[in-house]
């Protein structure tokens, strides 16, 4: 039987590593010091790539693997995969939709609460031993606020459902209006921002949506507005965001993603109206396992000529 070589691009999950190891002949891209030598020796047997949001499958990698048949990404986002090239070369692509929707939506609401009610700042304050009774500062109420969501896909819809339980008014921007949706539609992100207290980025990253949150949108959101980014760093013009926060033109931000992870603009470290987390969108034990299982099942389906579970291409 042909060896089933799988190239893992990044140490995304030790559980996934283990599951792959039990079934396939796994190579770890991040451990390889001499790539040219490695590809010369092994590329003939590598039929699958398992990538993630850190390292996916670009043209260069695809070209190094002439036996590549399938890319299975440990993410729902596809921005690190050259989809057009995969299509052209007949390489299948699968991702991990649905299993992580809840975690990411929970993160969005959690970031709204943490940012508006300054929960992380409170935790820092108490743990630094600074609390004196009677000192307080008002924070921003969340219930009843106007939430604007960029992208009303699976994740955007899940965020909307949660926001409704807090009596929020939900509006959205999408490539096209969804007539079956009960939420208010705005035809541009600037208009959405002008009419929202909290703006949440929940769309896919494509060439069209790069820097979809720019200076104009940030100004429209304004000095009382909150920006929550649970999409991809490049959705937001990060330089402009930093200026706006430092200058007080934006009320606050809850950020899970950044343009150049794991690097985060240091100007943000000293601000108390931001919450910064480390791309933890789907980073729970439960969801990590579900995502890993889905990656493995897609690969098993491929290698036994069965229908893929969550194909993209």
């Amino acid at each position: 039987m042909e060896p089933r070589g799988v190239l893992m691009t990044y140490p995304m999950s030790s559980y996934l590593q283990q599951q792959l190891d039990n079934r396939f002949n796994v190579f770890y891209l991040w451990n390889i010091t001499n790539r040219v030598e490695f590809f010369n020796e092994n590329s003939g047997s590598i039929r699958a790539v398992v990538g993630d949001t850190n390292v996916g499958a670009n043209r260069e990698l695809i070209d190094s693997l002439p036996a590549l048949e399938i890319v299975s990404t440990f993410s729902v986002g596809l921005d690190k995969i050259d989809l057009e090239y995969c299509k052209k070369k007949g390489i299948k692509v699968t991702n991990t939709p649905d299993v992580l929707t809840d975690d990411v939506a929970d993160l969005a609401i959690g970031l709204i609460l943490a940012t508006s009610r300054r929960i992380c700042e409170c935790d820092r304050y108490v743990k630094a031993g600074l609390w004196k009774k009677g000192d307080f500062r008002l924070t921003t109420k969340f219930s009843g606020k106007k939430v604007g969501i960029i992208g009303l896909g699976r994740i955007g819809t899940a965020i909307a459902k949660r926001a409704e339980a807090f009596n929020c008014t939900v509006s959205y921007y999408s490539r096209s209006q969804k007539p079956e949706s009960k939420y208010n539609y705005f035809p541009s992100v600037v208009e959405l921002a002008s009419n929202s207290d909290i703006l949440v980025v929940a769309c896919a990253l494509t060439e069209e949506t790069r820097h979809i949150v720019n200076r104009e949108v940030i100004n429209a959101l304004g000095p009382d507005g909150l920006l929550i980014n649970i999409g991809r760093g490049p959705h937001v013009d990060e330089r402009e965001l930093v200026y706006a926060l430092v200058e007080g033109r934006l009320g606050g931000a809850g950020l899970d993603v950044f343009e150049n992870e794991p690097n985060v603009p240091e100007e943000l470290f000293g601000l108390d109206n931001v919450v910064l987390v480390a791309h933890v969108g789907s980073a729970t034990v439960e969801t990590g396992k579900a995502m890993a299982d889905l990656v493995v099942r897609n690969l098993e389906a491929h290698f036994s000529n069965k229908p893929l579970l969550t194909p993209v291409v």
Partner: protein
Amino acid sequence: MADLVQSTDNSHLPVAIIHRAPNFKFSSSWATDIFTPIEPSDPLYPTHRPSARVIIVMALTPLKSEHLDLYPSVECVIGTTAGVDHIDLAECRRRNIRVTSAGDAFSEDGADYAVGLLIDVLRRFSAADRYVRAGLWPVKGDYPLGSKLGGKRVGIIGLGSIGTLVAKRLEPFGCTIAYSSRNRKSQLPYVFYSNVLDLATNSDTLIVCCSLTDKTHHIINSDVLTALGNRGIIVNIGRGGLVDEKELVKFLVEGKLGGAGLDVYENEPEVPKELFTMDNVVLSPHRAILTPEAFEGVREVMVGNLKAFFSNKPLLSEVNLSD
């Protein structure tokens, strides 16, 4: 009826004694058409003290028997907080004094905060935020995994106005809601447990939303913590006295509890220092309800109660003293 109008003061408005801690700043500019505020430092205080019918208690300033002794004519205590355990309710009942609270003015913000604390503890936001700010992400790599909210069994202790809003908020997150309360609320779809120990046995998280009384003091004790289990989470936005703090700290230090999100403590502003270094604990300095909207809301409730009292109408948010 007490003589409300004195020849030496300019006001024909009824008097209300302002009972506040020395460092609590109070402005009554919003109420100058409803009542005349008189404080102990006021020159007119000696005149009004024996005849004043209303005391307004600012924030959590304790109102005890010795304070009530100063006001023989008082008939109504206007509280300005959700919880009224700082007021000697038994004494008020004995003296036929009615007591009001902030009613529902703080409920939404309290519920929002409880949910915020729970998500923070499970998903480790505060810890991750510290991690990023310390510049550790590029150095130490990905932050350790948190725990999913969906599918968790949430037990709410006290299904009053705050507890009900907490339940409503957590439903779309995929949590299973159960509760323990003085009374079963059959119109609500959640599972009822008649005691907290049973609730804890069947929950992954306990959210404490009830009022502090003699009966609920240390309602979270070591038995309850043991029943909750070593992955269990406690969120307390009620009162510090509802939790046996020494036991809570012991369980957390020994790894016998999964984590905690706390806004209140037994001896504020003292917080057990063992908690300062724990990433699975999120600490807040009693701020669950501090938003401009909540303050506006409580002002409305205060005004409403004062107007109702002075015009002999039913009070808006009277506390039931017979519990």
